[in-house]
């Protein structure tokens, strides 16, 4: 986003080299609230995932199938939203999927989800 920030902030009377903390923090804390693309992406995906799985829309059902495929891919017993296990299973699962990227963002930002999905069970 820098090309437009480089131009727009000086035009708006604000230094373009202002700290990123001040630039991206919300207006409630008296900052500028210029959107950070990476954070906005993760936030949008998380809210989309929760909304569609909760409402059980067509997209939500597709996401549930994708979650189940992800569970099979990682071979994890329990919920894939458990951030404490992300570091271990991220070593062997596919990394190009939307869901992996979402789990990675949640792990990085310490966001915990509680979306129910089918789990693997231990063989008796």
């Amino acid at each position, binding site marked *: *986003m*820098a*090309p*437009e*920030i*480089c*131009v*727009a*902030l000086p*035009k*708006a*009377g604000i230094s373009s*080299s*202002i*700290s*990123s903390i001040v630039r991206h923090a919300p207006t409630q804390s008296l900052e500028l*609230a*210029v*959107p950070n*693309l*990476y954070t*906005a*992406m993760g936030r*949008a*995906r998380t809210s*989309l995932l929760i909304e569609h799985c909760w409402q059980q829309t067509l997209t939500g059902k597709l996401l549930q199938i994708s979650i189940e495929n992800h569970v099979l*891919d990682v071979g994890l017993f329990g919920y894939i939203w458990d951030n404490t296990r992300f570091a271990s299973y991220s070593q*062997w*699962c*596919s*990394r*190009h*999927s*939307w869901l*992996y*990227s979402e789990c990675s963002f949640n792990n990085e930002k310490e966001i915990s989800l509680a979306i129910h999905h089918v789990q693997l069970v231990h063989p008796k």
Partner: protein
Amino acid sequence: MTLKEFSMQNENGKWIAADAELGDFDLVARAADSEFVSLTRLNCDDESEMLRLWMSPSGQNKKMINSLRLAAVNWAAKLRIGRSSQAEAWTALNTTISRKLMYPLSALTLTEDREGMHIHYGPGNLRRTPKSWY
């Protein structure tokens, strides 16, 4: 109309998209007006545009990143040569270009350190970026 041919292959324990080898024959589909249309065949790395999103089965984001970066650079060039007031520049930043860049984000899998930085600064500009911008 396009047809994406790909299969998932296991490489070093990880599933990745690979080109499917279905053979060289023509595939047709019936369009809404009952006419038969020949399908354009794309490989797993070929990105195609749909609803202003560039997508490919292999999860590449190159064209999407380029299109976002181009939009940002063009918008900045127009604002630079225009004579906007401070309020207009601020409003334009928060309404036009920000919304345009944020529109495809929920469908993307950008990483902050690599693709995200290329949108922000471009591959050649990383060294010139001040530290405070991170």
